[in-house]
C-alpha cells in the first residue's frame, strides 16, 4: 500500500481553517519542520494545535503563532516563546495547559481506541476543574478524554513507502503517539526507503496509522539549549 506523496505541500493540501492538528516534537527536537513551513506558507488559520510545546519565537510552531494562525494551543509547557506568552496574557490566544503525561496518554488513548483514561496528575489542582474523578484503591484519579484531531503531523528518522516509521533517540517523544491518534496522519522523514528495507522488528509506528509520507528537505534541526563540557 503506497502512502508516498510528493512533499509537504501535497501532504497538507486539505488542511483547512479551523482544523485541529497534532504536531509531534519536544521543544524543537523531532518537530515536522517541512510541514510547519508549508502551513505557514499556506496561511491556514483558526487552528487548534496540540503539541507539547509551542516552538520558539522564530522557529517551529512559533512561526505559525507569529502569523496568528493558531486560535487555540493545547500544550504542557510554553516557557520558551515570548510571543506566545504575550498573546496568551493579552487574551488573543486561547490556551489549555495540561500535564505532559496526560497529553501523551490522551494521544495513546486515541490510538488505542479507548475513549478515556484515568490519571492522578492534576488531582487537587485547577487542572481538575470540571472533570469527573474516581477513587481506585484509595487514590483519586481524573478522567481524561482521548484526543480527536483532524490531522496528526509527525517527524520520523526513517520511513518506508508503506508508512512504517522509525524514530531516532529523543526525537521520538510524542511522534509515535500522535501518529496513532490523528484521523489523517502525515509523516515526514529524513530518509524514505522502499518497503522491506526496514527490519520489521525495529519499526516503532506500524504503517496502518500513517496515511501520507514523504522525505523532507533541508532539516535545520535547531538546538534550543546547546550545552557542552570541556575536554580535560
Amino acid at each position, binding site marked *: 500500500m503506497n502512502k508516498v506523496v510528493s512533499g509537504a505541500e501535497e501532504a497538507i493540501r486539505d488542511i483547512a481553517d479551523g482544523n485541529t492538528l497534532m504536531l509531534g516534537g519536544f*521543544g524543537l527536537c523531532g518537530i515536522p519542520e517541512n510541514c510547519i513551513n508549508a502551513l505557514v506558507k499556506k496561511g491556514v488559520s483558526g487552528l487548534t494545535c496540540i503539541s507539547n510545546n509551542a516552538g520558539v519565537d522564530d522557529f517551529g510552531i512559533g512561526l505559525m503563532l507569529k502569523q496568528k494562525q493558531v486560535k487555540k494551543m493545547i500544550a504542557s509547557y510554553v516557557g520558551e516563546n515570548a510571543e506566545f506568552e504575550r498573546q*496568551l496574557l493579552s487574551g488573543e490566544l486561547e490556551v489549555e*495547559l495540561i500535564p505532559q503525561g496526560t497529553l*501523551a*496518554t490522551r494521544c495513546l488513548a486515541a490510538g488505542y481506541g479507548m475513549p478515556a483514561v484515568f490519571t492522578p496528575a492534576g488531582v487537587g*489542582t485547577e487542572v481538575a476543574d470540571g472533570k469527573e474523578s474516581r477513587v481506585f484503591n484509595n487514590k483519586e484519579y481524573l478522567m481524561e478524554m482521548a484526543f480527536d484531531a483532524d490531522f496528526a503531523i509527525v517527524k520520523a528518522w526513517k520511513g518506508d513507502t508503506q508508512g512504517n516509521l522509525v524514530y531516532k533517540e*529523543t526525537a521520538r517523544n510524542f511522534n509515535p503517539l500522535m501518529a496513532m491518534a490523528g484521523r489523517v496522519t502525515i509523516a515526514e522523514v529524513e530518509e524514505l526507503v522502499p518497503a522491506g528495507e526496514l527490519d520489521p522488528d525495529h519499526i516503532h509506528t506500524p504503517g496502518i496509522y500513517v496515511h501520507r509520507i514523504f522525505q523532507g528537505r533541508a532539516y535545520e534541526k535547531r*538546538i534550543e539549549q546547546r*550545552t*557542552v563540557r570541556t575536554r580535560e
Partner: protein
Amino acid sequence: MALNKEQIAKRIARELKDGYYVNLGIGIPTLVANYIPAGMDVVLQSENGLLGMGPFPFEGEEDPDLINAGKQTITTVPGSVFFDSAMSFGMIRAGKVDLTVLGAMEVSERGDIANWKIPGKMVKGMGGAMDLVASARNIIVAMMHTNPKGESKLLPACSLPLTGVGCVKKIVSDLAVLDITPHGFQLLERAPGVSVEEIKAKTAGKLMVEGEIPEIVF
C-alpha cells in the same frame, strides 16, 4: 552562610541510594547529577524519553536529536534506552521512578507544591511536574527559603495555583533541610552559620524544632 545552588545540589545527592532510578527537574535539581557518589549505581530518567542520561557532550559532538527535558544537549551512557512520552510517564505513574527532585515557588506545611504559574504574570505550564508529583514515591524539593523580597516560601498554605497536593517529603533550601510531617515542617539540619532563630523567622508555615539542630557539614 546560606548554601549556594551547588551546595543545595550536593546535599540532595546524599539522599541518593544505590540502584535508584531518579528524575531530576530543571534548574538546581539538574546539578545533583554532578554529585552522585563515585561507585554508586544511579540511573537518571529524563521524561522526554530517556533512561540513562549521561553528561553534556564534548564541544562539536552535540546531537540535536539527543536532549533532556530541559532541552539541553546531552549524551547516553552504556545501557541507555529511548522510549516515547507515554511510556516515560507510564513508568513514572506506575511508581518505577524511586526519587524525583524538583524546584518550587511555594511549599505548604502539608506538602502541597506550587511551581507552574503566577496568575496574570507568568504562564509557562506544568510540563511533567504534575504527573511526577502525583505519582512519585519520594519527592525532594530544591528551593530558596525566601523570595527576593525576603518573604517565606514555606507557607501554611500555598497562595499560587497548585502543582500537587500533599506530595513533598523533604525540602533542601539555601537555609535548611526539612522533612514534611503530619505536624508540619520538621527542621533536620541548618546551613553552616545559619541560626535556628533565622530559620524560624523565615518559615511562615508550622515549624517543629526538636533538640539540637546540626549544621550541614560538607
